[in-house]
């Protein structure tokens, strides 16, 4: 029993990292007034690009960098559309998710001739045996706490939040609202890109068709539940990482006890757990009215 709990916690610490990076990135973006629901697409695309780079260079750290750069490019696109072209941010995000899925699978089949998964690539090793701790865990935690400090304890953080609450007042304060929103979008997408690359080079070790499996949207739920606070999103990411861990751990455990069961079809039932968990928690514990006031609205300079 104790062993199970330790093992689940360890798995949760592995699974929370992409959720934490994506949700902290999205908090920075949304605090500036821009919504990016293309997180799912960024996770998929950066996971694919990082598997491609790691496969050809055999260096997972380069893969991580490539993932960050893919996220950055996605952020440039979304920032340009939502800030300078005053596009509809939700529609741009939905379009990007479809596009990123399409192009990543196109690339997967074009590169390896396989429809389901890439070959295994080299990984960033875990430390702290018997637990599995990725070096990205402390990095992600430091990023989350730094972002909290930046947003709530520095004057540039205050200026960023002003862009999301009342862009006109921010402009009067001398803030370049358009530039601030653009940079916040790029930064948020870059962090999400690191998260996507981590799923491949830090965790699974290969790219698969459903590699992200809704994690981008779970990160969006964490953003709302944390009340747009990066420090609280650590707790949210751990809880949903824990659900993720349970869904992978339970079917294996059950089969150990009862080897006669059909694991494949049973595992489908357990895959429901993380999504059901999000639904229940969001429906019962979300408190409305804490979103940045100007969220999702394009700013038009007079």
């Amino acid at each position: 029993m104790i062993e199970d709990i330790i093992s689940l916690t360890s798995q949760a610490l592995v699974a929370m990292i992409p959720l934490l990076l994506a949700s902290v990135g999205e908090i920075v973006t949304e605090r500036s007034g821009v919504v990016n629901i293309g997180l799912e697409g960024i996770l998929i695309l950066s996971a694919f690009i990082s598997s491609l780079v790691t496969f050809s260079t055999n260096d997972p750290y380069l893969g991580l960098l490539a993932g960050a750069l893919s996220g950055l490019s996605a952020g440039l696109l979304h920032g340009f559309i939502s800030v300078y072209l005053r596009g509809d941010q939700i529609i741009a995000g939905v379009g990007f998710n479809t596009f990123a899925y399409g192009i990543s699978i196109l690339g997967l089949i074009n590169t390896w001739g396989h429809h389901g998964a890439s070959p295994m690539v080299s990984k960033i090793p875990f430390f702290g045996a018997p637990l599995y701790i990725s070096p990205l865990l402390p990095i992600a935690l430091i990023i989350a706490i730094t972002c909290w400090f930046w947003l709530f304890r520095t004057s540039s953080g205050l200026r960023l939040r002003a862009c999301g609450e009342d862009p006109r007042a921010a402009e009067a304060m001398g803030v370049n609202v358009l530039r601030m929103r653009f940079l916040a979008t790029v930064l948020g997408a870059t962090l999400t890109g690191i998260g996507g690359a981590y799923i491949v080079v830090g965790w699974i070790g290969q790219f698969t068709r459903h590699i992200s499996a809704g994690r981008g949207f779970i990160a969006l739920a964490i953003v709302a539940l944390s009340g747009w606070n990066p420090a609280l999103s650590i707790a949210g990411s751990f809880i949903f990482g824990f659900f993720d861990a349970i869904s992978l751990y339970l079917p294996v455990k059950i089969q150990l006890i009862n080897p006669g069961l059909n694991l494949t079809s049973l595992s489908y039932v357990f895959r429901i757990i993380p999504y059901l968990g999000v639904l229940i928690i969001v429906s019962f514990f979300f408190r409305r009215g804490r979103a940045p006031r100007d969220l999702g609205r394009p700013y038009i300079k007079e």
Partner: protein
Amino acid sequence: MRKIVLEVSLSIILSFLIGYIMLILMGYDATRVFSIVIREGLSNPTYLMMRSTPLILTALAFSIPSSVGVFNIGGEGQFYLGALASLIIAYTTGNSLLSTITGMAAGGLLSALIAVIKVKRGVNEVVTSIMFNWMIYFSLLYLISTYLFDPLMPYQSVSVPKNARIEYLTIQSVSIPMIFPIAVLTSLAMYFLMYHSALGYRMRVVGISPKAARYAGFDPESSIIISMIIGGAMSGLGGSLLILGHTHTIDSTMSGLYGMGFAGIGAGLLGRNNPIGIIFSSIFLSMLLIGGEAAELRARVPTELADTLIGMIVIVLSAPYIVRILRVRR
């Protein structure tokens, strides 16, 4: 009207152009691929009508709530649920009408739940929609592999019995799958609902300005819930018609259902959220989907080419400002 035509055609041209360059970079003969996509996509009118049917309905599922200001991106899950409910009822009762109604009810019930969580708890519909999509996806995989599989062909579910299938109507050697006129008539009915009825007027006012709606005595919350129920029922109907009139079964990997809800979002946006525009945009996107499948056989380009193109069309459509910039320069 001219502005809309310009925006829509520009988004298609721009995304085809990017797709063309992308294919060349990946080492394909892009000209040949695009000519296969368009030629093969249009080669079989019967099949084109068949494939457009579910798309018209998932597009309505997105567009009707969208006119009220709600983003129903749960069309995918509502479509799965409609297909499942419809299959079970058709298999057990052999009655196609009952099966269709159940499919619509299943889709509508799911979207109602999403709308109630939004209205009562303030939770964004985008997040709950996606959570439901994945839950239903895995539930269907489980049900089909465990309870509903065909003992003779275990890689697919049991089939819709012959007497419950919706067949073809042949007019002068052109056979029309009956599900297509059903979808077109539904779309026309939705047009009248949205633009020529009191309910539709209320919904559109809420979409333009919830404050003005409240001032006029319209309750925005009930409009949101009603629009979502209609949307979900449309998606459920789409799943129903696909099962009764086309596939008659669900394969164990769900490849026949996967992605229809998301393609519907593209069709809805490309049709400018107008039920009549949606009929044409759905036929156009179905051409891309069918052509994409032909390109896989003939030129070994993965079918995800169609997803990529649809995604790009949607991205360009999100920013109508692009069109304005290009027009000023001209």
